[in-house]
């Protein structure tokens, strides 16, 4: 049924391909081309929405987390490891002061990252966080993070940047370890 309907729509003389004049076809096709150019750009927000909806990419919430209740789940401990990477051509010294911490879900974990600008000029940096495994991304909350804003350091200046983390009590039981990675980008003059 559906097939014969499709067939008549596509292939009969009064199909959607009916003779509408060559300029008509050309104009319609040109319109499609313009629309598809727009669609290319539409893929940008679609990509962001999809990443958020299916929780891929390890992208954490770019806003501070509001603590809802402070019940601590003492039945288990979660190991959180920290990784710092400099994006190529980024010359800062950058890294966590501890490699890993252990916290109960619901408990606040604090540590700091160290950064130093060894160059002779004032620079601005932006840290981009990412969490693995991806399934754990939504359960790692940051109440305070240097990644919420850009960091500007004068020549030779150094800084200790605090980071406060709460692991959600709803973190799936099978996840015992989370890795929080920061990549530091040079965004001077951007």
């Amino acid at each position, binding site marked *: 049924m559906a097939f014969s309907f499709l067939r008549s729509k596509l292939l009969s003389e009064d199909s959607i391909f009916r*003779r509408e004049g060559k300029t008509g076809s050309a104009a319609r096709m040109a319109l499609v081309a313009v629309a598809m150019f727009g669609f290319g*750009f539409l893929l940008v927000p679609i990509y962001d929405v999809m990443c958020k909806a299916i929780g891929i990419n390890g992208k954490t919430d770019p806003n501070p987390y509001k603590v809802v209740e402070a019940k601590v789940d003492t039945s288990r401990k979660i190991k959180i490891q920290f990784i710092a990477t400099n994006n190529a051509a980024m010359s800062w010294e950058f890294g966590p002061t501890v490699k890993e911490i252990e916290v109960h879900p619901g408990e606040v974990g604090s540590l700091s990252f160290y950064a130093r600008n060894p160059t002779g000029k004032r620079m601005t940096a932006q840290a981009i966080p990412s969490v693995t495994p991806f399934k754990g991304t939504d359960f790692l909350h940051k109440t305070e993070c240097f990644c919420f804003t850009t960091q500007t350091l004068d020549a030779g200046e150094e800084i200790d940047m605090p980071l406060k983390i709460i692991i959600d009590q709803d973190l799936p039981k099978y996840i015992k370890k989370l890795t929080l990675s920061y990549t530091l980008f040079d965004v001077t003059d*951007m």
Partner: protein
Amino acid sequence: MSAMTDTGHADAHHGPAKGLMRWVLTTNHKDIGSMYLWFSFFMFLAGGFMAMVIRAELFEPGMQIVEPEFYNQMLTMHGLIMVFGAVMPAFTGLANWMIPMMVGAPDMALPRMNNWSFWILPFAFALMMSTLFMEGGGPNFGWTAYAPLSTDYGPKSTTFFIFAIHMMGISSIMGAINIIATILNLRAPGMTLMKMPLFVWTWLITAYLLIAVMPVLAGAVTMMLMDIHFGTSFFNAGGGGDPVLYQHVFWFFGHPEVYIMILPAFGIVSAIIPAFARKPLFGYTSMVYATASIAFLSFIVWAHHMFTVGIPVTGELFFMYATMLIAVPTGVKVFNWITTMFRGAMTFETPMLFSLAFVVLFTLGGFSGLMLAIAPADFQYHDTYFVVAHFHYVLVSGAVFAIIAGVYYWLPKWTGHMYDETLAKTHFWLSFIGMNLTFFPMHFLGLAGMPRRIPDYALQFTDFNMIASAGGFLFGTTQLLFLFVVIKCVICGKKAAAKPWEGADGLEWSVPSPAPYHTFSTPPDVK
């Protein structure tokens, strides 16, 4: 009535204008088709020369001939020129020459735009190839131009590369619009859609694909342009963007592009195999539906090019199964070609030889494609020479062999002369042997772990690379023989009949050879 028409349109029967301006100003579909075909052939030689540089460097391990930076530019340019300069314009050239004659139309629907579509191309490629002589060299990031290789780390000339891509895109979109307008509006009375030759059908569907995805590529490179010059962060994670987004946008274009480069080839062999098997094409209707299904599926499989970027398991499974589904309509086609030949009175002139090689070798390339479609296995094969072997089997022995088959098949119609069958068969066998010598060992290299796009390799890969290089030189030089055969045919070939192939079918064989400058000024009667 007919006498009146003749006097009234006396100027419509003039021959071509004289001199260089004929080619600059022409709106004749045959002139433009010829220009497309010659242009694509010279691009094929240029891209082929770059392949020779690549194979010469890879003949032995260690850095031998070129600098790594230049090697990267060679492999990038080789890919870009072969895709946008050789294969696509060759198909457009065949479409220009054959589609109006196949549907009984006097010319393309929009002849003036047709002229423009072609003449943009030489300028686009001059612009792109001039980047090789610029400070910092030409594009060196592979034809896929992944961000941030192309945005943060690309050479200064990347901007010219972007504009060249824009121009090529405009050219092929206009070409596609013209083809659709011709097929939908200029068919002779009685030429219903389901009576059209399959080459026309495959090109109709290809043209839709072009209109749908070339603008997306234009969007991708425009975003790249804005990231480089206007401080946006589409692909820059530091500014809130994502480099993986580039890969999604690119392959949303890139996968349908793969079928843009093979669907017209399906059309060509679907014309040639029945002609030399002396049987009508088996399963015409299923061929049309299979082509449409492949075109549809091509839009929902793009992420199989990026299984290793970290997409969720569900996504990997979806793209894996969707990709494997393409094997079904493709299998229908291969089945139909074989069944067409079954118990046919076959002869093996050169067009048939290339078509037979197409069926066998394209299927082989399809099988390695199925292996790559298996997501867990692809983690092993990704970015190895196995991928290089796969896409050269579908593009060289697929698209290029079909184009060559089409050229031999229609040369008598274009030139009015027969080509030299002995030389042409020599061309076929040397191409066939050279092609397999070049690309078959690459399967083994890839499975053994040799990465692609690297100018040096570990010692254990030496033997297979030497074989591949030797085959490459053979295949490359053999194409000069092709040039010779074509020139010999044009200048001093034997006179060809209107229908030089006994079993050939279609309106193009109802006009004399060479086809007059204007054909079907009055539409033919199609039964």
